[in-house]
C-alpha cells in the first residue's frame, strides 16, 4: 500500500505540495484528470518521511498519508 495517496480527481495541479516537499518526491504528472488538470504524483513512495507538509498545504484535501506499522 502506498504512503502518499493522491486523489487525482480532486487535485487541481496548483503545485503547492511539490514546492513544500522536503525530499522532492512529488511532481506534476503529464496525464490529465476528468476536470482537465494535471494531478500531482509521487515518484518514490519509499522516500516519504510522513512529514505531512504536502497534506497541510493542499487546498483540495487531495492527499492522504499512511505509514507502515513497525513490527
Amino acid at each position: 500500500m502506498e504512503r502518499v495517496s493522491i486523489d487525482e480527481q480532486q487535485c487541481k495541479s496548483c503545485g503547492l505540495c511539490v514546492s513544500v516537499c522536503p525530499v522532492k518526491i512529488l511532481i506534476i504528472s503529464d496525464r490529465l484528470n476528468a476536470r482537465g488538470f494535471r494531478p500531482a504524483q509521487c515518484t518514490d513512495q519509499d522516500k516519504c518521511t510522513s512529514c505531512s507538509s504536502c497534506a497541510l498545504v493542499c487546498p483540495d484535501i487531495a492527499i492522504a498519508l499512511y505509514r507502515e506499522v513497525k513490527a
Partner: protein
Amino acid sequence: MAEEMKVIYERPRSWANKVTHYCPGCTHGVAHRLVAELVDEMGLLDKTIAVWPVGCAVLGYEYFTFDSVEAAHGRAPAMATGIKVTNPDNFVFTYQGDGDLASIGMAEIVHAAARGWPITVIFINNGNYGMTGGQMAPTTLLGQKTTTSPLGRTPQTNGFPIRVAEMLAQLDGPAYIARVSLDSPVNIRKAKSAMRKAFNAQVRGIGFSMVECLSTCPTNWKLTPVESMERIRKEVMPYFPLGEFKVAQGVL
C-alpha cells in the same frame, strides 16, 4: 499478506468529499480543511452551525457535513449572534472574506465583537474581492494594483488598509483575536492552533473570538500559487503582522 498501515493523515469526517469551486492554489481550501479537522477533533460535528458569507466562500455549505445557513452580504455575525442566542448549546461560527467582513459588514463585526457573545469568526484576508474579479477591498495594500485601482492603491484617493484584528482587539468584548497566515506548513500548523483556541473560547463560553487568516488569491493577483505564497511572506506580512492580539483569561 498486506502490510499494516497506520493513518498519518486522511480527510476529515465533516468534509463532504466534493471538489471545491475554488481556483487552483486558493487557500480557502486550507482554511476549510482546518475548520473541518477541528470540528472533528473537538467532537462538534453534531452541534455545529456554520454561517456562510457572500463572496468566494458563498458555496461553503456544499462542502461540509454539518449544518449551514447563508447570510446576506456582511451580516453573518448578526445572524450568528441570533442563532447563538436562541441555540446556546450549538457551536456557531461564521466564515467571511475581507470584502464581506471588512467592508459592507464592518458595522456587524464591530458590534458583534463589542457585544462579546460567544461566536467564532474565521476571517479570510486576501486583499481583494476575489469572486467578482479582484476589485479593491479595505485590506488591499498600498500600491497594490486591482481592477478598481489600476495604478495601485494610494492613500489620497483610496485611504489606508484596515487592520481588522488590531482594531477589534481594542474592544473589551472579544475573548480571543489572532492573525495567522496560511502560506507554509509551519504557519498552517500555527493557524490550526489559533483556530483551536478560538473554537475553545466559544465552547467554554468565554466570549467572541476571531481568527484572521492571511490568504492568497492567485487568479486576481495574477501570480502562480507558489508565487502567491511568497507574496504573503514578502509584502503582506510586514503590513499585517501575525500574532495573538487579545487572549482573555481561560482561553487555551
